[in-house]
């Protein structure tokens, strides 16, 4: 990091102010926050840091603190302690007046004519670390002296860990939902349902074309496939699990004592599958982008979770096509920012990263220089870690980008993480680091549109780029053509690697600034009155605009209205033009400015007419939990005979509506309680069980914690009915009695006759 100490101090103050301003909701949502309540902190802090106005500061610096302190003391301030700090700053402790609060005392000091600014000398706390055990390997999120390109996420997390109102789409190979560090959103995880946009079944490799299941089926290409057919010349490769890797960088489950941490801890991830075997076609990618951002795509149900950010860790050589330009433009109009990787050829920025309005991200080495493989050029918005190994003769890859992955070389195997031996590098992984940062920004200020997010992302970057101490390392240059490649380390410039090194804390501080909105009639009369209003300006989440300041920034204009209200007026010039600037300040002193050029005929401004009213985004609830309802709900069968077919209605499943069956807790049942087949056919036991009622349970395969039950009552067989009567006698038994009776009578008669 090449910030000078004064800038560093200002940045620190800005970040601290951001942390101080977090609303209670964010505090509750931030398990990493370790600072005490801000009021208690201020109340115990009698000290302040003061800078005197430039007219006196040089002398003050030259003569130490004595003169300045004396002057303050002469004006009634009882100075107890004074100490000179670097950069013309002074640490002071001032006696309070009777009944005076610290805030009132601070205001009194600030009001002094020679004081440029005065801030509380606040207590600082070590940045929170997530509990994820593999976080120690995630150098790229940290603030490390040996890795200047690391993005200072810890400092950002103290201010905000993201927001459940933000959806980040990953246009990629799909995702492995069941990775224990990702998981489905309705199972306590981060991954929303998404969609599979791969039209070609062979490329999709999941048995079909487009469908609602964006699970990554694997994108391996066998040697045989490279010799013929549609994957000819694609190159043999194992499954990449690329989307799962990207997903982990953006939003692995964090502070869960497992695996790695995500850049953002709360935002949702929307997996949109557009890449399969041998990549993917523009036609699928573009529709995936459109759908993810909330645009309608024919033949596909509209996306219930429109994304604010889309991550595209993909590309190819060549200029931005009109089709990408069109879709990116439509998405930008909806406030969606596309973040794309610059490419791994070391040449000109690939497409779609080179499209106007896209945040193209190149890859940086840990040291902040360009990593050899990363493509570069003026289209790059910002640089971020891309992974580099340092060791070129074997050994561990010291600065790999650790994230979630899988061990399967074809179909999914065991869930794993990348590390120094299971290496993960590429601009593919620079982009999601930035997407995560933008997710933090959008959560802090939901009014920021696509262009504003991009501008403030760049504003928050760490500059200047470090220069390698090795004099043999050249400066990067803008590629002149596709063959002009720089595949070795080079020193970044703003025309090759973007505005600077991505800095999560800086970007978040920039996002927390208010948005100045400015409107005026588009056409004016020469010399006529022109009303200007900034009333539709807005603060970040839970912040309000406290002051407005109008001034003529250039040209010969004169305000005809007040300069400190939400609206004012000017007289249009008779000829030429002048510029009026509106500066808005929020309740924490953060500012934004907007200019409007007023000519004799028209007004022109790049500022929005209205900043928006969604500074705090509403939380997006996770999808409804799966429910399972067997039918019929009850049945009665006779022991030893009879079957009942059960079906199970599974609602809210992402893709798998199948169930497993149990009888009284026994999978498939048994001879005692009856059996049930995989298709739900229940067969009663031979004898009545005890108790006679058994429970049939259908359990969701997709979410085994969700099940539904039905009852089956088993009854004994009916007793054998009595013999049926026949004719006048009533059957064989009766006939036998008649016969015996007749025989007896005959016997008696014969004895009487004999």
């Amino acid at each position, binding site marked *: 990091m090449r910030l000078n100490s004064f800038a560093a101090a200002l940045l620190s103050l800005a970040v601290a102010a951001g942390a101080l301003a977090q609303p209670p909701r964010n505090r509750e949502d931030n398990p990493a926050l370790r600072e005490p309540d801000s009021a208690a902190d201020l109340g115990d802090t009698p000290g302040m840091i003061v800078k005197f106005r430039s007219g006196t500061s040089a002398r003050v610096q030259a003569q130490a603190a004595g003169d300045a302190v004396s002057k303050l003391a002469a004006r009634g301030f009882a100075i107890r302690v004074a100490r000179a700090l670097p950069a013309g700053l002074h640490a002071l402790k001032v006696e309070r007046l009777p009944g005076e609060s610290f805030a009132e005392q601070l205001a009194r000091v600030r009001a002094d004519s020679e004081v440029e600014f005065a801030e509380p000398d606040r207590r600082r706390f070590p940045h929170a670390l997530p509990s994820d055990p593999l976080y120690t390997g995630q150098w790229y999120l940290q603030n490390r002296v040996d890795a200047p390109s690391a993005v200072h996420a810890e400092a950002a997390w103290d201010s905000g860990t993201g927001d459940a109102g933000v959806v980040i789409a990953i246009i*990629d*190979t799909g995702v492995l939902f069941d990775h224990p560090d990702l998981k489905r959103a309705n199972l306590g995880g981060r991954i929303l349902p998404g969609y599979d946009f791969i*039209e*070609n079944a*062979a*490329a999709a490799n999941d048995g079909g074309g487009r469908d609602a299941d964006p699970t990554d089926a694997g994108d391996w290409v066998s040697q045989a496939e490279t010799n013929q*057919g*549609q994957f*000819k*010349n694609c190159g043999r490769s194992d499954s*990449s699990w*690329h989307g799962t*890797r990207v997903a982990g960088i953006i939003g692995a489950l964090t502070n869960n004592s497992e695996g790695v941490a995500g850049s953002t801890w709360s935002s949702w991830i929307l997996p949109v599958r557009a*890449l399969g075997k*041998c*990549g*993917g*076609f*523009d*036609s699928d*990618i*573009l*529709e995936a982008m*459109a759908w993810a951002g909330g*645009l309608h*795509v*024919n*033949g596909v149900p509209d996306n219930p979770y429109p994304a604010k950010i889309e991550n595209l*860790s*993909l*590309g*190819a050589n*060549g200029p931005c*096509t*009109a*089709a990408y330009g*069109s*879709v990116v433009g*439509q998405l930008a109009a909806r406030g969606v920012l596309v973040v794309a*990787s*610059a*490419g*791994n050829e070391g040449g000109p920025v*690939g497409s779609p990263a080179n499209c106007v309005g896209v945040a193209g991200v190149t890859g940086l080495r840990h040291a902040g220089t360009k990593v050899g*493989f990363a493509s570069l050029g003026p289209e790059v918005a910002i640089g971020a870690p891309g992974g580099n190994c340092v060791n070129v003769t074997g050994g561990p890859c010291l600065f790999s980008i650790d994230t979630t992955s899988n061990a399967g070389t074809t179909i999914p195997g065991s869930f794993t993480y990348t590390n120094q031996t299971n*290496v*993960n*590098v*590429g*601009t*593919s*992984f620079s982009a999601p680091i930035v997407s995560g940062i933008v997710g933090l920004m959008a959560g802090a200020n939901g009014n920021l549109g696509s262009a504003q997010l991009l501008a403030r992302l760049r504003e928050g970057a760490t500059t200047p780029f470090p220069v390698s101490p090795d004099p043999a390392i050249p400066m990067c240059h803008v590629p002149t053509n*596709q063959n002009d490649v720089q595949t070795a380390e080079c020193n970044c410039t703003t025309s090759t690697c973007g505005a600077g090194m991505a800095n999560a804390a800086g970007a978040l501080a920039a996002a927390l600034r208010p948005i100045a909105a400015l409107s005026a009639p588009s056409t004016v009369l020469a010399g006529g009155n022109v009303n200007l209003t900034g009333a539709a300006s807005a603060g970040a989440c839970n912040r309000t605009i406290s002051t407005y300041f109008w001034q003529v920034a250039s040209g010969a204009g004169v305000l005809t209205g007040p300069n400190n209200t939400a609206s004012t007026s000017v007289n249009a010039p008779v000829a030429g033009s002048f510029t009026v600037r509106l500066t808005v300040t929020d309740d924490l002193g953060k500012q934004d400015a907007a200019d409007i050029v007023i000519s004799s005929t028209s007004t022109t401004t790049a500022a929005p007419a209205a900043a928006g009213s969604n500074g705090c985004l509403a939380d997006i609830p996770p999808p409804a939990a799966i429910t399972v309802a067997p039918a019929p709900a009850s049945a009665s069968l006779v022991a030893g005979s009879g079957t009942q077919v059960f079906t199970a209605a599974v609602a809210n499943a992402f893709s798998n509506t199948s169930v497993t069956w149990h009888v009284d807790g026994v999978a498939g049942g048994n001879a005692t309680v009856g059996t049930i087949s995989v298709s739900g056919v229940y067969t009663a036991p031979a004898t009545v069980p005890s108790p006679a009622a058994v429970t049939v349970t259908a359990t969701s395969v997709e979410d085994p914690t969700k099940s539904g039950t039905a009852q089956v009552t088993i009854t004994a067989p009916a007793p054998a009915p009595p013999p049926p009567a026949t004719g006048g006698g009533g059957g064989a038994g009766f006939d036998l009695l008649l016969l015996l009776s007749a025989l007896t009578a005959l016997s008696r008669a014969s004895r009487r006759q004999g």
Partner: protein
Amino acid sequence: MSVSLPRSLLLLVACAAAACAQPRDDGALAEPGCSVRVIVTLQAAPNDALVADLARVSRAQLELVRTMTSNLHLFALTAAGSESECTAAIERLRRDPRVDAVDIDQRREIQSSP
């Protein structure tokens, strides 16, 4: 939209045509031909008459595969002859005033290494 076709685009058409994996259902051509899928930006929604007329203008078979967004439409373009015939047909399409742009449906790849 009228642009000259650089050599790289000619190569791209050839590569795209070779790599194009989408099945064709228009039967075999009477002579060796080229086939490529293109994303066409149109000013108006395409109907049968427009597609037929664009095919006539481009001097190629043109089949609407699907409408992608309000102004982007995916077509299968097939032409008799060599790869350059597809390139020429695309160029003719681009010159049509009803067409804002024509892009070849290219393959994109993940950007991780190895």
